[in-house]
């Protein structure tokens, strides 16, 4: 089966100047990622690891430095952002942003927020067509018709999250990229939004790339998970397996840091310190070196590659945790 999206050797750096010296911040550093049709992939990692930058690269909101992005086998990474925005492919990858309050135009009603991408990307022939598409999208995300004339300040957090999802789904994308879509919601509203996303992915065979620091949510929603650290993917695998038996020492520390109700874990592994700077990183050392409890001498002089260590399981580590 052709992957829906395939990113290869994707790199994004930002130029920064420190004390008059020009440096490069390697936000996304040689990333490979595959998303199959209908698949829900979780992208997790600490703040600053590059997960949001990777999401924006894949959504074609920012330009990559190098690497390929293939959508249904066709290279789209080399198409300029202006041309991509005007191309039919723009409809096929849509994004849902983190804070539903900040990402909605306060002067657009819920109807207009959902109608805007239809006007731009589908160019409906009539008001009736526009309305039928907006109403259909609102129905699918569980937004009542009487809510549509309201403005963002008149909507609850859960309703705003639904507007954000509806305006992405209204153009019938193949891939929905969601950057922390539930982090601003109360647990009760969050449960509904997660179930909605699971239902959408089953009903409309849309693939999800779900970016989150909340690993519990990723565990429940996603088929597969990719763990990022310092711009690189350090582990991938089936979500249930990665959570029950993490193989990369970083993934293990990350998962043991999540509190779980009913689990007494006072003796758990603790990860102190902060990730190293992504500015001009040492190309020879493993990115996790210095913070890793399993590191040995070779980790400082030979960068590990992402390699398959078990069926459907990859880890970027010389000494992965045994199962």
């Amino acid at each position, binding site marked *: 089966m052709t992957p829906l999206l395939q990113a290869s050797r994707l790199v994004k750096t930002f130029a920064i100047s420190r004390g008059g010296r020009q440096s490069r911040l390697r936000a996304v550093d040689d990333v490979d990622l595959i998303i199959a049709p209908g698949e829900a992939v979780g992208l997790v990692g600490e703040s600053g690891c590059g997960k949001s930058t990777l999401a924006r690269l894949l959504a074609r909101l920012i330009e990559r430095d190098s690497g390929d992005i293939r959508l249904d086998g066709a290279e789209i990474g080399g198409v300029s952002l202006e041309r991509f925005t005007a191309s039919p492919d723009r409809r096929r990858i849509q994004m849902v942003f983190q804070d539903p309050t900040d990402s909605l135009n306060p002067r657009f009603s819920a109807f207009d927020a959902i109608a805007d991408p239809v006007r731009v990307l589908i160019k409906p022939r009539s008001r009736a067509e526009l309305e039928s598409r907006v109403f259909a999208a609102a129905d699918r995300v569980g937004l009542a018709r009487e809510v549509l004339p309201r403005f963002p300040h008149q909507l*609850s957090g859960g309703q705003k999250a639904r507007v954000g999802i509806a305006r992405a789904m209204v153009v019938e994308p193949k891939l929905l990229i969601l950057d922390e879509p539930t982090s601003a919601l*109360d*647990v009760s509203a969050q449960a509904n939004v997660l*179930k909605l996303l*699971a239902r959408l992915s089953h009903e409309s065979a849309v693939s999800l790339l779900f970016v989150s620091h909340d690993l519990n949510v990723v565990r*429940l929603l996603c088929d597969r998970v990719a763990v990022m650290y310092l711009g690189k993917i350090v582990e991938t695998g089936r979500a249930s397996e990665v959570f029950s038996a993490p193989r990369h020492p970083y993934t293990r520390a*990350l998962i043991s840091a999540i*509190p779980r*109700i009913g689990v007494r874990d006072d003796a758990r592994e603790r990860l102190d310190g902060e990730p190293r700077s992504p500015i001009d990183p040492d190309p020879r050392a493993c990115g996790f070196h210095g913070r890793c409890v399993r590191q040995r001498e070779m980790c400082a002089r030979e960068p590990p590659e992402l390699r398959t260590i078990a069926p459907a399981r990859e880890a970027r580590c010389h000494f992965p945790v045994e199962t």
Partner: protein
Amino acid sequence: MSTLLSVSDLSIAFRTSSGVVRALQRVGFTLRAGEILGVVGESGSGKSVTALAILGLLDAAARIVSGRAEFDGRDLLRLRRSELEDIRGRDIAMVFQNPRAALNPIRTVGAQIADVLARHTPASTAVIRAKTLEALRAVRIPDPERRSRALPFELSGGMCQRVGIAIALSCAPRLLIADEPTTGLDVTTQAVIMDLIRDTARERGLGVVLITHDLALAWRYCDRVTVMHAGHVVETAPRDALFARPRHPYTEKLLLSAPSRAVRLDDLEAIEGAPPDLRRDDLPVCRFSERCSRRGAICDEPGLSLEALGPDHFAACRKPL
């Protein structure tokens, strides 16, 4: 253990342009020395208003309708401003939700710790400087000499929150009120910050009120948990009892909506409806009753209060589970 803080019968209303918001009604709980009490609930349940009231930090629109907050045999709600200013920062400290917003952006973090020390424990510059570095070391900030000269924007969110905790703990308070101290931080940083708060509570007998919407965090760190809904305390119990056998229907619903307990997505249950608008004149006796599947005629009878249902276990419900 002795009672450190006792809040009782606390009712607070806010005057707004669209009516009076009955934010808290007859809220009560106690905190013992060395104990971590979790206060959990959805947004708008009154968690932060309770914290601000104890510290005398409510804004001018707020009116304390009734209640007491006893600390050291004194009612914090009736102290003069100068008395409160002597206590705040010295005996009672607060850690705020957004660490970057809580710090002064144009003063070095070392100077901000020194300000608090100089206010409450006047000493020579050299002594204050030494204590400042000690406070930074206590929260495990690497290279405290250099970091003390940093401005908040130069530090990560996790580092800023460590500074916030360093300020709070610098004068060795006996009561710490932490309002969502790790919301917005990474789980790894959250674990470091919360371990630090717990270790300090154990070592120094510090009492902590931990306000959080994260039930799993409350499970890991709290001795007892108080659940709030729409300005009411609905249940208070020791941690194990509350999570294993919740007695208030709202607590049960809250637990069923927590992702960390679910094995599959289908296990998650959303809480239907929303809390009532607290500006309403016809607020029900039980503010959860309109969302509750167990509601009966008895629920509308006046005089609802927390009843003992087990050892140290209280719930405000006419039809408890």
